[in-house]
């Protein structure tokens, strides 16, 4: 390519400057697309970070067992699995027993998320969840109570602990100790109210402000006596003992599952893979916006580049007559479309962070993450688009017949 590259870059920016409005409008498509991608990644990164902060604040001796094989984070963002409701969990009560009997494990709490309406004087909104678990959850997840107490072996089985917001929603007050609510037609007595955590994104995938926590055995009863375990939280007696204990558990469960690796044990940062439903909704919508705007933006680039090629037919003829080869011409136009897409991408990266901060400051409880990976993704998307949608116009330009081009408009 000799020294042509720099020259093409200068040339491209000169030509973009000569039609500012047109270039800016073309860039806008890329900008919106890249902004959406950046916002998604920044927010999802922020969500992951908040969970990993939770994990490390819980002194790092927590592990989580989930059914199925852990997928990588990008796939779990773009193809969220609604395993709460549809998939049959591969974790069984027998597994809980194994884990309990493993040395160095101090607490075990299975989580069974149930669907079903919560009713008292009014019906709870649909974002409320019913979770059946064991008393150990309070210790593992460090749940603080506003009033009353958490579930306990010694209490009656129909006890329920509810979140502050749920209490307000169904009783109209934050203090509802001793009041009675119904879940799937069965009555439960409120024994405790959780302190407001304002933290819907956590590794339990449960918004503890909007939850009704019942005993595991009661939960099973509501579910035709079938245990459906979405997750098992475990806590080791010390950080050093966590890994050996996990290895032990993995081996035992694997054996009892006939050697089928249908579960995953996650520790530390692995847990922070974000799983919140709320987050999936945001991510799903923005991914769709991003995909559409990237496509439309790309078509815009191609369109403008074709116009540019047509406008500069004569220049192409001159350049060819002066010794430009076909590839020189196609590079010239390809670099111009790359200049559009990369400039748009940089603008999109900045806008994406603005959007992410606006969203997080107004609706969410965490800040978006800032790291180099996101900027690389934004750059790669821009380069990919500039190349993909610039290739055809560049090819057309290079194929122009010099004679016809030279005598156009003359």
């Amino acid at each position: 390519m000799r020294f042509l590259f720099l020259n093409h870059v200068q040339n491209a920016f000169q030509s973009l400057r000569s039609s500012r409005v047109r270039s800016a409008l073309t860039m806008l498509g890329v900008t919106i697309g890249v902004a959406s991608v950046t916002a998604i990644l920044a927010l999802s990164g922020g969500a992951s970070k908040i969970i990993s902060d939770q994990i490390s604040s819980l002194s790092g001796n927590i592990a989580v067992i989930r059914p199925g094989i852990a997928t990588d984070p990008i796939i779990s963002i773009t193809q969220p699995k609604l395993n709460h409701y549809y998939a049959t969990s591969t974790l069984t009560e027998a597994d809980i027993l194994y884990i309990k009997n493993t040395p160095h494990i101090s607490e075990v709490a299975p989580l069974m998320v149930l669907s079903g309406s919560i009713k008292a004087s009014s019906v709870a909104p649909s974002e409320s969840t019913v979770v059946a678990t064991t008393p150990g959850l309070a210790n593992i997840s460090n749940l603080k109570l506003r009033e009353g107490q958490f579930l306990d072996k010694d209490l009656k089985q129909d006890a329920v602990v509810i979140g502050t917001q749920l209490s307000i929603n169904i009783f109209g007050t934050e203090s509802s100790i001793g009041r009675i609510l119904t879940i799937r037609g069965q009555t439960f007595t409120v024994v405790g109210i959780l302190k407001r955590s304002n933290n819907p994104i956590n590794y339990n995938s449960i918004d503890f402000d909007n939850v009704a926590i019942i005993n595991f055995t009661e939960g099973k009863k509501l579910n035709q006596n079938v245990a459906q375990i979405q997750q098992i939280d475990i806590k080791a007696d010390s950080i050093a003992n966590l890994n050996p204990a996990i290895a032990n558990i993995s081996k035992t469960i694997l054996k009892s599952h006939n050697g089928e690796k249908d579960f995953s044990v996650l520790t530390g940062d692995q847990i922070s893979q974000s799983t919140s439903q709320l987050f999936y909704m945001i991510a799903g919508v923005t991914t769709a916006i991003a995909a559409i705007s990237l496509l439309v933006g790309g078509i815009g680039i191609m369109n403008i580049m074709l116009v540019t090629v047509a406008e500069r037919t004569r220049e192409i003829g001159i350049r060819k007559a002066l010794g430009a080869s076909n590839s020189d011409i196609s590079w010239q136009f390809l670099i111009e479309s790359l200049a559009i897409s990369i400039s748009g991408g940089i603008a999109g990266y900045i806008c994406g962070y603005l959007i992410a901060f606006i969203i997080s400051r107004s609706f969410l409880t965490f800040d978006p993450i800032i790291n180099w990976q996101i900027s690389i993704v934004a750059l790669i998307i821009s380069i990919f688009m500039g190349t993909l949608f610039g290739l055809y116009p560049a090819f057309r330009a290079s194929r122009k017949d010099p004679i016809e081009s030279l005598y156009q408009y003359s």
Partner: protein
Amino acid sequence: MAVDTLPPVIRLRGLQKRFGIGDAENLAINGINLTINRGEFVAVMGPSGCGKTTLLNILGLLDRSVDGEYELDGQPVSEISKRKQARIRSQQIGFVFQSFNLVSRLNVIENVALPLIYKGITRTKRLQIASDILRNFHLNEREYYMPCQLSGGQTQRVAIARALVNEPSIILADEPTGNLDSRSSHIIMEELSDLHKRGNTIIMVTHNPRLTTYASRVITMLDGQIDTDTRNITKQPVTRHRKKSARKLKRGKK
């Protein structure tokens, strides 16, 4: 290639170029045999539509003949790849068009430096060379003008400067003075004949019989064929005007 057996720069044999198809078929060039040696100044004349420009385009590797042979420096053009042809255009051939064909987006010095881009010369060097050659054409004060701000004569001088900037051995000029008044024409013709004296091969298409006085060989074309081919024109006495402009040019080149 031995020095003593240098092949002619251009050798055409039975060259044909067809436009249109079927009933509308029209032979723009109908069997031209022509040999041009190094250092000749050929003026090509003829009525409009006799195929002069097409011939020039084929000679400049911009167009392809449909039939016949074209050897450039002893090498058949049909065997040269497109990329190689672009390199030959870049390094050996300089074009001067009737309609100037400057890139209107670029200023004078950038236009002149344009061919150097494709020779792979760095930007600073390019502008230096372009500036030098513009000084030869008394255009050094116009370096940062845009083409639309120049007069016709200046524009054509810029176009010639651009054709010469990569030091081509063959210069193809398509009515270089077609749009100019006689004074500007003579300045440009002086420049071309000066190039000729320095050993360059020049092929010029023109309508103006007066300009053939500068050439060492005059070809007239008719209906896509060579009608007459006159060599060794007796050098006409240098007119007062020519003397004056020649002096002017020499002073500029010091």
